[in-house]
């Protein structure tokens, strides 16, 4: 994907500007100049003009949960291909998880990731490991990692299995101010499970992962967060039980935020029938009652973030029998289209709420400033067309991965790309 340098002045015409923080939602024109928003409702002529034909322009989306695989697993994804997938999906920034090889448990590695990402407009904010080598034995140098640029801490892909260590990590989060992102899973309850434990796993003969595995671990971490006063963020909430525990903790004033993935909002364990390994991830696709509960969690605003848990894998790791396949599914290039079509168009989400879930909630969870559409503001914008019809085809993705559980879905609403400072990056060529 080529990055395109914007002209010094560019007028975006017929743009539907939405910024829920500014109560803004109208179709007008927007003048950007030298990487900044110069004027809304601009009537300026004699400049370069890009007619957006009603595309939505909103504050840039931030994917709080992606796996970029570099260093260590470059045949699955690299920082650059991940950034391109992000831009194609309408994300101007991402937070990358530290389950690389080596794990991001060292300040030098955090700085290295940030440097690698600097040549492309999508900002990459590393999440550092909570424990050295993600082994759940000793804490990383959290203050140093934070100062090097880590925005949060997580052993994602695995839980911090020691409750004592999790307690200390949450205590330390009071010092750094950066949250501990928990991958809440009781590994002893997961066992060799490959999918959600239910009548579907029984029918398919696949070993099950009970919802208990997530519920028990979530309750533990919520209690530890309450006791320590630390900052906790729940990654990929997938069960009604974990949601209920979250809401109880929110009522008690616990400093906790939570995210949900598009696949847990739109798919259930029934998607595993047929043994497509793209449907294998952690936490697994749950039951219909869990799925419905997650939508309610969004509308009650207990869950304030949509994050994709973009987890690319090579064909070698996925084109095998189901129980042997790696856990993880792609997310960045489908998230917006899926949520616009099956969320906003289906009447489950207001457009402004969708933007908050992709832009504001995730940044607030890690304390990053939120881009605003106002004169003088820095340009960090997502552009997508709410009427464009398309069919999901993983073979066209910018990500190296092909493990997409939504292959063949027909959607209305498609990301075009991002404007970031002086640059455009996206799947669409700008016309000006």
């Amino acid at each position, binding site marked *: 994907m080529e990055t395109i340098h914007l002209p010094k002045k560019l007028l975006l015409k017929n743009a539907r500007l939405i910024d829920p923080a500014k109560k803004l939602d109208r179709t007008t024109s927007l003048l950007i100049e030298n990487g900044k928003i110069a004027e809304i409702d601009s009537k300026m002529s004699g400049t370069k003009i890009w007619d957006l034909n009603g595309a939505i322009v909103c504050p840039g989306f931030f994917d709080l949960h992606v796996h970029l695989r570099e260093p260590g697993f470059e045949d699955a994804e690299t920082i650059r291909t991940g950034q391109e997938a992000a831009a194609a999906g309408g994300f101007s920034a991402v937070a990358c998880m530290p389950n690389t090889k080596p794990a991001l448990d060292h300040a030098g590695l955090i700085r290295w990731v940030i440097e690698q990402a600097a040549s492309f407009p999508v900002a990459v904010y590393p999440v550092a490991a909570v424990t050295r080598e993600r082994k759940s034995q000793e804490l990383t140098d959290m203050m140093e990692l934070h100062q090097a640029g880590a925005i949060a801490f997580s052993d994602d892909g695995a839980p911090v299995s020691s409750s004592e260590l999790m307690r200390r990590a949450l205590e330390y989060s009071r010092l750094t101010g950066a949250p501990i992102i928990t991958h809440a899973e009781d590994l002893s309850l997961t066992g060799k499970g490959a999918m959600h*434990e*239910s*009548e*579907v*796993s*029984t*029918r*398919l*003969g*696949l*070993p*099950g992962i*009970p919802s208990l595995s997530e519920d028990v671990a979530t309750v533990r971490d919520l209690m530890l967060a309450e006791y320590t006063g630390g900052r906790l963020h729940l990654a990929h909430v997938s069960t009604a039980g974990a949601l209920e525990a979250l809401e109880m903790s929110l009522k008690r004033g616990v400093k906790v935020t939570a995210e949900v993935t598009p696949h847990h909002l739109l798919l259930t364990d029934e998607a595993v029938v047929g*043994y497509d390994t793209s449907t294998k991830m952690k936490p697994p696709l749950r039951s219909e009652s869990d799925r419905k509960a997650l939508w309610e969690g969004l509308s009650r605003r207990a869950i304030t973030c949509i994050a994709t848990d973009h987890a690319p894998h090579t064909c*070698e790791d996925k*084109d*095998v*029998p*189901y*129980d*042997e396949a790696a856990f993880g599914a792609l997310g960045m290039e489908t998230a917006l289209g899926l949520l616009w079509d099956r969320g906003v168009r289906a009447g489950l989400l207001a457009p402004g709420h969708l933007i908050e879930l992709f832009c504001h909630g995730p940044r607030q969870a890690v304390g990053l400033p939120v881009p605003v559409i106002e004169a003088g503001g820095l340009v960090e914008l997502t552009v997508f067309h709410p009427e464009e019809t398309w069919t999901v085809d993983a073979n066209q993705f910018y990500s190296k991965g092909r493990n997409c559980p939504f292959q063949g879905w027909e959607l209305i609403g498609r990301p075009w790309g991002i404007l970031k400072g002086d640059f455009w990056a996206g799947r669409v060529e700008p016309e000006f």
Partner: protein
Amino acid sequence: MSSDRSQDRQLSSRHLLGLEGMSAEEINYFLDTAETLKEVLDRPIKKVPTLRGVTVVNLFFEASTRTRLSFELAEKRLSADIMNFSKTGSSVSKGETLLDTARNIEAMRIDVVVIRHQSAGAARYLAERLRSVVINAGDGAHEHPTQGLLDLLTLRQKFGDIKGLKVAIIGDVAHSRVAKSNLYGLKALGAEVMVCAPPTLMPRGVDALGVKVCYKVDEAIAWADALNILRLQLERQEAGLLPSLREYAMTFGITLKRLEKARKTPVILHPGPMNRGVEIESAVADSGASVILDQVTNGVAVRMAVLVLLSTPEVMV
């Protein structure tokens, strides 16, 4: 293998991956064919030329004696060319993937693949990637359709009709592909099915499959016309699902003493190999109520029927 039998007869698929969703008509087609072919096994020269020129590979990724020998014998009786492939000493133990194994089979122009694999869905995985006919000889805890069919044939011989029959499946239901294929087949033919296991070996949501669920073996015995007693894998105890084999034998083992308490003695099936003294007492296994050796004979006939119906242009018996 030019013609596709599934076009003109009652077969819904060119593969046999499982009994889930199979109609009574189709199941009976397999059973009737097996009944006819069984006669070959009693001839002085126990061989027919039906599968001459058909190449069958027996791909056994998981240890198996009974099923492998039964398939092999069925193939030999039908004059097929046979290749055997088992996990030990093969390319699989050198790290070859199932996909590469499949591609090699394809390159060797094999007509029929009989696969036993530890992963649920493995037979379907091959069927989606090969031109060959795929016969599932057991995939993980999913299905073991030829075992299901041979159990049905055995029950049909014993009772005449399966409709309305009460069959209790007893033991490690959670990890059992035999239980699954049995219950689908039995339900399709109109039997009532009960599963009976310790709660730790009862799969979640099994009642959604339309079976009665029971945790007391004496209740199952009193209710059933036939008991299908599952083999207890000894590693279940290591996994902490059972306190001890002794405890299991005491609470779930089928003994003569237990059977004598029932008003009528149920017919006893077991897919083998048996752990005598654990899930089944020797006195029960060797009793007049046992049809365990009939199952073995029927196993060969059923596998012949499956091979014939799936892999020949015409039935030649």
